[in-house]
C-alpha cells in the first residue's frame, strides 16, 4: 500500500539515480497488466514469459542509458515496447511457421509416420516368409522367371537373354507362376495381406 503512494515517475527517477528497489516496485506494480496484455495476443505461456522478459530488458537498458523521457507515461511506454515485441514474434513465426497442434487441424492427419509399428513389421515378415515358401514350390522354370522379375527387378528382355528363352516364353512362365501361386493360396486359405 505504501508503494502505491509513490508515483511511477518518482520510481523511474529513483531507479535512474541508482535505487534498484524502485525497479522491483515498478515491475510488481505493472507485471499483471503487461503480462496479460502479451498473453492476450500470443496465447502461449512460454512465449509470453519470453516477451515479458525481453520487454523489461529493453526498459532497463533504455532507462540506464538515459533514453527515456519521463512524461508520466511509464506503463504506456512499456506496453508499446511489449506490443512491438509481439509484432516481432509474429513476423518471425511467419517466416518460419510453427504448428502447435492445439487447434482442430492436426498436422499428424496429413503427416504420418511411414514406418511400420512392431506388430505390422512382424506380419509383413511373416507374409514375405510364407510367400517365399510358396514360390519354392513352383516348377523350376516358373520360379526362375518370377524370382528374376520380382526380386531382382529384371526386365523380361533381360530374363529372356539370361535364361535363353524368348520374351514370350518368359512372359508365359511368369503368368503361369502367378496362376499357380494363386491356386495354392486359394486352396490352402493362406492370407497374405498386412
Amino acid at each position, binding site marked *: 500500500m505504501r508503494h502505491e503512494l509513490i508515483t511511477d515517475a518518482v520510481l523511474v527517477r529513483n531507479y535512474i539515480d541508482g535505487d534498484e528497489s524502485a525497479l522491483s516496485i515498478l515491475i510488481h506494480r505493472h507485471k499483471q497488466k503487461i*503480462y496479460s496484455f502479451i498473453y492476450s495476443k500470443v496465447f502461449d505461456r512460454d512465449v509470453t514469459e519470453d516477451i*515479458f522478459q525481453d520487454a523489461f530488458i529493453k526498459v532497463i537498458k533504455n532507462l*540506464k*542509458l*538515459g533514453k527515456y523521457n519521463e512524461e508520466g507515461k511509464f506503463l504506456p511506454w512499456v506496453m508499446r515496447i511489449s506490443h512491438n515485441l509481439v509484432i516481432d514474434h509474429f513476423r518471425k513465426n511467419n517466416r518460419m511457421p510453427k504448428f502447435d497442434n492445439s487447434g482442430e487441424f492436426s498436422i499428424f492427419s496429413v503427416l504420418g509416420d511411414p514406418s511400420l509399428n512392431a506388430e505390422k513389421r512382424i506380419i509383413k515378415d511373416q507374409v514375405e516368409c510364407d510367400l517365399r515358401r510358396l514360390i519354392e514350390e513352383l516348377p523350376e522354370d516358373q520360379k526362375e522367371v518370377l524370382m528374376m522379375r520380382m526380386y531382382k527387378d529384371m526386365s523380361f528382355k533381360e530374363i529372356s537373354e539370361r535364361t535363353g528363352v524368348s520374351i514370350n516364353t518368359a512372359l508365359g512362365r511368369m503368368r503361369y507362376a502367378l496362376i499357380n501361386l494363386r491356386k495354392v493360396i486359394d486352396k490352402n486359405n493362406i492370407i497374405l495381406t498386412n
Partner: protein
Amino acid sequence: MAKLYSECPQKKENLNPKEETIDFLLNYSKALSVIHCNNLKFEALQN
C-alpha cells in the same frame, strides 16, 4: 434443468509472470552498468 456441456467454463487464470523471470530481471538490472566515456555510452554486464 439440463446442463450445457458445450462450452467449458471460463477458468479465471492467474496471469502473472514467474518469480524466476522477475528475479532474473532484477539481477540483470543490478548487473548492468552504463559507462560514460567521451560522449559515448558503453553497457557493461557484470556477473
